[in-house]
Each structure stands twice: as C-alpha cells, then as structure tokens.
C-alpha cells in the first residue's frame, strides 16, 4: 500500500461514542447534586469573559512566567 496515501485506522470507539456528542455534565448519572462540575457551563462563560478582558484569574493559578513558558511539566508518575 502506498504509504503516503495510506490512512491510519483509528479505533471506532473514540470517535463514534460520546466524543462527538459530549454529554453535558448535568446528564451524567454519576454526579450527585451540588457538585461544582454541574455548573461548568456557567463557570466556562465567566472564565472566558475574564480571559478575554485580560483580567487575572481569581484563584492561584500558577500563571507565572515559568508556568506559561513550560506548560507541560511532568504531571505523570511518582516523583
């Protein structure tokens, strides 16, 4: 098969189940009442607004020069 034309086969699961039509948090059966995650759409709107206005985020965000410059610290593994 021509390598340049060959398509990579991807598992059906990732792109046909759930990922294309993501459930809203409030539809999830695993969520109890009163969890912050249930209000994610509202939170998202506020965060986007804050970012667009160039205002500081309201909780300690680690948004120092170092963190911005290298967003991908080793967030895996034990130490």
């Amino acid at each position: 098969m021509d390598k340049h034309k060959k398509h990579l086969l991807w598992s059906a699961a990732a792109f046909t189940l759930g990922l294309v039509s993501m459930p809203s948090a409030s539809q999830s059966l695993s969520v109890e009442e009163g969890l912050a995650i249930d209000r994610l759409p509202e939170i998202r709107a506020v965060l986007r607004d804050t970012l667009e206005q160039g205002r500081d985020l309201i909780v300690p965000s680690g948004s120092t020069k170092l963190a911005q410059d290298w967003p991908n610290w080793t967030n895996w593994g034990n130490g």
Partner: protein
Amino acid sequence: MIPVLSPERLRGRTKLLVLQGTPFCNIDCTYCYLPDRAVKARMPVETIRAAVRWIFENGLGRDDLTIIWHAGEPLTLPRAWYEEAFTAARQAAPFSWRPRHAFQTNGMLIDDAWCAFFAAHGLRVGVSLDGPAALHDLHRKRRNGKGSHEAAMHGVAALKRNRIPFHAICVVTEATLARPDEVIGFFAEAGVTDVGFNIEEIEGINTGSTLAKHGNRARFRAFFERVLDRAASHGIGIREVRGVLGAAANLPDKEWPGNDQNMPFAIVTVTHQGAIYTFSPELAGIAHPRLGSMALGHVDADSLAEIVDGQVFQTLWAEIASGLAACARDCAYFPICRGGAPSNKLGELGTCAGTETMACRLGQQEIAEAVLGRVLNEMGRDVVLAKAS
C-alpha cells in the same frame, strides 16, 4: 463505521519527547515506577540523533517541541555528554526547531557548575521535593535507606543562589494529607513559587499506594483545599489550578478529544536503547502480564506508518480509545480530565479500557471540585457586588 484518519492528522502532534539518557537513579524511592533504576547504561549519542530525526522525519515534531531528560536521574550523566547530546539533537532537527530542553531531577547533584550549565543552555528545571524532610525522607530514600532531603536542599540552594528558575513536583502520599500547612510553609521558605502535586500512583512496578484506603478521598480534598488557601497567601502557583482553569475555559476538541497521555504521539518516550513508546511515559520499559512490552518499534528501524499499522499500537490504542470513549460517555469530569491516564487505568484496573481509578478520583475529580468550587464562590460574590452597586 471505522473512522479513518490521514497521517496528516498526526502532523505536529508531539509536544514532548522524553529521552531516557540513562535508566539509572542515584536513589531508590519506595514509590518509584522505573524497573531499571539500578542499571548504569547510557543512551548512545547516535540514538539521540536517531530519536530526534524519527520525530521530525515522521512529521510529528513541531517547532516548540520540548525534550525532557527523565526516566532515570539525568544529572548522573556528565555535562560533557549533554553537550554532545544537545548538539546531536540540534543537528537532527530541522532548522526551524527552537531547542527546548528540560530536566526533571531529584536535585541532589545540582551545584554551581550544573547551574552555569542550566543557564548557558536555557534549560528548564523541575525538582522532585515532597515537602519538609520528615515527609520527603519517608519515601525518597537512598539505597542505604537514608533520606535524600538534605542533599536535595543543597541543590535547591544552588538554584536559588544562581537565580535559576525552577518548579517543584511534590508526590502526595497518605502521610502528606495531614500536613498541608507544613508542605506549603516549606515551599514558601525554600523560595519555590511553582508547585505541582502528583498523587502517589499505582503504576508500573509500583503496585500499591498509601492513598488507596477508605476515607482518603475526603482527606485528600481537605488537604488540597487547605493547600489552595495557604498557597494563595504565599503567592505560590499550583500547577493543578492552572490545569483545571485552562480545561474549564475550553471545550474539548472533537478532533483531538483526549489529553497528552491518552492521545497518540502527544508524548513520545524513547528509552536509552532506542525503543519507542507513546501514551503515558510510565508504560516504557514495563512487561505487562497481559499486554507484554508496549514498545512500538525502534528509532532505527520503524516508520510511524509501520508502527501505527502494527499489532502493539493497534491493541493498545483500541483499549485506550475505548477507555477514553467510556470516560466521555459516563464521567462528568471528562471536560476537565479528558479521559485520564492509561498507566493509572492499567495499574489499577488491569486494562486501559476502564474509567475511574483512585488516581483520577483524587487527582482529577477532587481537585476539579476544589478549584471550580472556588470559582463559584467568587462568582457568587460578584453577583452580590453587582446587585449592591
């Protein structure tokens, strides 16, 4: 229907290349997941060249690709070796690559000479510090059983003295949970301004976690809430907060829905022998009872197209993708976590196709609740202020 993806869709997807300069580590942490940490081998410079060339020739590399030297203690190799390694990487990459190298180190060997080297090369440095000595030395032990905190703090002092910016990674174990004030107080006193908390995970050859006990979920939540309070008052940035806020502000990308650990080739790990891995870096070098080795190929022998067509990648990706899909379907925290880490799922559930793990309940769900809860509190206050004015 089986969706197809042209090789173009993997173009420029690799953000991070983990190179295992050596598997050797000068200490022997009780929670370490690295199987070959007593092996004093060294990656041949030719293999470095081949690894970087493999990334770019297969179209995965991007101009801001970071190379992190990890999966062993990087500072046990001499600076002269890194000089050669950086030159080899530079020569193998296209001219447009802006060299970015990073070290994740236990800090014990850092001295003024290493600091001069970090500064000369603009290296990014992360130091593994579990807090004050009483916590750090519980798990971060030398081979003779003694602790490593004192030596690590000498390294931190050298970094401060030489004004080298760095961050700390703190592994949270059960013993940490009772001591958030001491942990943040320690980082404040040490002058550390950026901290990431990795929870003690069950993965690789580390088959248990002190956190895996009834009641520790609530204790972890209380710990993290307190960490947020104390960090705010000391002006310390917490990596997890930034991660949650960044994810919360953006909807998952339908074309690329997962995270760096569960989407193919976002992270590529190459062992000192030249074996290629992707997904969670901890999958490198382990022999799983069911899956065997998860090495996808070798930098000298296999193209990306051959690897993606191969049995190992297809088996692993089928499992990981179905775990990702199950997370997206069933978990409210998916928009923040984006499907968890295959290494945690494999370590705890025996399959990457599962969903919830202890690691995600603590490291994703409770952290998301703590951070988003604070945003909600602030929003409530804003609403009250708006009404009053």
